[in-house]
């Protein structure tokens, strides 16, 4: 997700090409071509410009609903309802992959969580992540906390620091707070022994009221992540 204001002007984008499961878009204002995955203008009058990344979540509707009861949901367009496919992932997974990276640890269609910190990229295989969550890892000197949500499908990545000091987190299934979506789910940090919710905010304990910094992360196929981040490392435990 990107902001679409460039040089003080809000651009309007439209689909202009498909590129290996990412796409190219053009803006109606200048006709410049932009790459969806990088937000960069690759051809045309605005070539070289870059859109700003907006922090977004890929979470379940149930999780979102519990966090933002006053929020709005995009309504389906009646004309295209038959095109929407809840089960599109298995269908797409069958498509042939044009780019392959034989010799790398993962298979092309393995799902990963991709994170970049100050230019250094790392991929976390989803299967591994789901089993080991919460994961505390270090990328380019920054401690990261990767968390699978109470619903087993939502995920978020945070900077694993409380008040500037590195922190370790564990899943605390014993206790919980009634305001959580699933009472009983909370993270516990070893530094202040506070309880934290899936939004990365402490709900009880000495750190109560504080929130961890979010890190943008992308759930992607390995081949795509590796294609755009050739120097990426892969998380191993």
């Amino acid at each position, binding site marked *: 997700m990107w902001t679409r204001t460039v040089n003080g002007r809000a651009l309007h984008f439209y689909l202009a090409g498909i590129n290996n499961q990412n796409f190219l878009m053009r803006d109606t204002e200048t006709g410049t071509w932009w790459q969806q995955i990088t937000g960069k203008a690759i051809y045309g009058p605005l070539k070289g410009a870059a859109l700003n990344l907006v922090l977004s*979540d890929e979470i379940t509707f149930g999780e979102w609903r519990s966090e933002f009861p006053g929020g*709005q949901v995009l309504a389906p367009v009646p004309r295209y309802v038959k095109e929407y496919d809840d089960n599109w992932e298995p269908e797409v997974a069958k498509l042939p992959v044009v780019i392959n990276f034989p010799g790398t640890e993962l298979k092309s269609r393995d799902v990963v969580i991709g994170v970049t910190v100050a230019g250094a990229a790392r991929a976390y295989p989803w299967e591994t992540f789901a089993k080991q969550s919460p994961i505390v890892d270090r990328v380019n000197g920054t401690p990261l906390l990767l968390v699978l949500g109470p619903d087993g499908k939502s995920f978020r990545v945070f900077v694993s620091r409380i008040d500037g000091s590195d922190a370790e987190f564990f899943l605390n299934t014993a206790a919980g707070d009634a305001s959580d979506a699933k009472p009983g789910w909370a993270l516990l940090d070893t530094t202040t022994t506070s309880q934290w919710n899936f939004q990365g905010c402490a709900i009880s304990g000495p750190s109560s009221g504080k929130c961890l910094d979010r890190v943008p992360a992308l759930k992607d196929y390995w081949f795509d992540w590796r294609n755009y981040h050739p120097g990426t490392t892969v998380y191993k435990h």
Partner: protein
Amino acid sequence: MFLRQHAPLWTLIAACACLVFTFILWPNLRRWQKALLVLSLAPVVFSAVMARLNYFEWMFHPIDSAQFLPQAGNKLDAKEMVMAVRFDADARAYPISQMAYHHVLNDVVGGVPMAVTY
């Protein structure tokens, strides 16, 4: 990219040129030569037309005017995945099953123009 950018103009020029040659040559051609010429005209004219159309938007129609429902007023299953963004007090969810089809949506969240892409 250079070809894509300039295709609409140059295919049009090529199609016009072919049509002009066709008219000039027509009286002097035998019947089988006329048939051949018409057949070869077809892909040239086709290219000129297709270079001006966005067939990606035929496959994946854009959302003309996005409507939003309050979270209580829609029929999504709790397990369905959404892309979620929040700016100030404006929290929006874009179901991935819809965005995987439309691919791009120009929206304004909390007063900030944003491009939702999937």
